[in-house]
């Protein structure tokens, strides 16, 4: 079912609701029985509300832009001084995070320091190879497992100080343009108190701005409470909810 077909169905529903409203409008005037007049007036009023809802849904779908379009449009403005927050649904999280990495590495030529909190680097490398991402441009810090044998440094996600040190060390070895892909900042909230994660994020942003490296913060929706999410949004140049 494409968008045009959905729109056509919604326009039909809108027309039916108008017809229903007009029907009750005319017919309720013929009744004198107070209970019937009251009931039909309530239905007529609801139909008026349905007309309004159907109009709003038509507008919403007419103005709808696919998520990958919104994402690419935003990423064209991403530079080595940008800080973007991606707030993603659990269903689309992997797809959008991968699309972001692919665009920045393959299209914009960034080198990426990938902080893997959710999945081990070995798994991610395989996924990204299959996706046609230039994995030679990627370096990893593994936070999901200890001693992976991958050759990449491993850091306990509870130890944010050590994570900062590892980022500094690896960043120095990377040529420009470069950025950090933190996958995910929301997972850090599982291992740390929110104020610690936010202090770490702020520190990281300041550091990266000074060192000319961009930052993508990935957050999975509902893993972080709204108050913390609001604070993360305030740190970033741009926040996308997809």
């Amino acid at each position, binding site marked *: *079912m494409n*968008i045009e077909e959905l729109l056509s169905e919604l326009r039909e529903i809108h027309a*039916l609701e108008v017809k*229903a409203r007009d029907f009750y409008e005319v*017919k309720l005037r013929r009744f004198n029985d107070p209970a019937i007049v009251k009931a039909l007036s309530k239905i007529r009023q609801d139909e008026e509300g349905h007309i309004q809802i159907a109009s709003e849904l038509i507008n919403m779908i007419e103005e*709808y832009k696919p998520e990958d379009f919104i994402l690419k449009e935003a990423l064209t403005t991403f530079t080595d001084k940008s800080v973007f927050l991606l707030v993603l649904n659990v269903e*689309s999280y992997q797809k959008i995070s991968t699309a972001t990495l692919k665009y920045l590495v393959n299209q914009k030529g960034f080198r990426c320091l990938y902080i893997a909190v959710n999945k081990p680097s070995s798994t991610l490398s395989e996924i990204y190879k299959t996706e046609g991402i230039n994995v030679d441009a990627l370096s990893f810090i593994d936070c999901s497992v200890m001693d992976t044998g991958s050759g990449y440094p491993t850091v306990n996600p509870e130890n944010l100080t050590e994570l900062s040190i590892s980022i500094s060390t690896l960043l120095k070895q990377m040529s420009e343009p470069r950025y950090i892909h933190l996958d995910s900042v929301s997972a850090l909230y599982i291992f740390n108190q929110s104020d610690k994660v936010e202090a770490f994020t702020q520190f990281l942003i300041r550091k990266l701005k000074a060192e000319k490296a961009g930052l993508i913060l990935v957050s999975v929706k509902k893993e972080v409470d709204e108050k913390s999410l609001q604070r993360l949004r305030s740190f970033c140049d741009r926040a996308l*909810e997809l």
Partner: protein
Amino acid sequence: MVERNEAIIILAEGLQFEEAIIIPRLQTFLSNLRRSDIGERVKDEVEERAIHMLKETSEHSAILTKLLRKVAGGSQHEY
């Protein structure tokens, strides 16, 4: 003021419109929406509002059924 038989026809017409036309239309729309390519965030928002319309339409159907029973079973000649 409307006669009893005419009242029954009006209420039955309303009930038929709600049950046989609007409810199936909304149900089809919801099912097509789920299978569509629209992103999850917009899909959830549209779905929530369409479900609201469906619930209210089902309530209308219940209200009209109740009124129809009252009129059909009543002794009054006019409503």
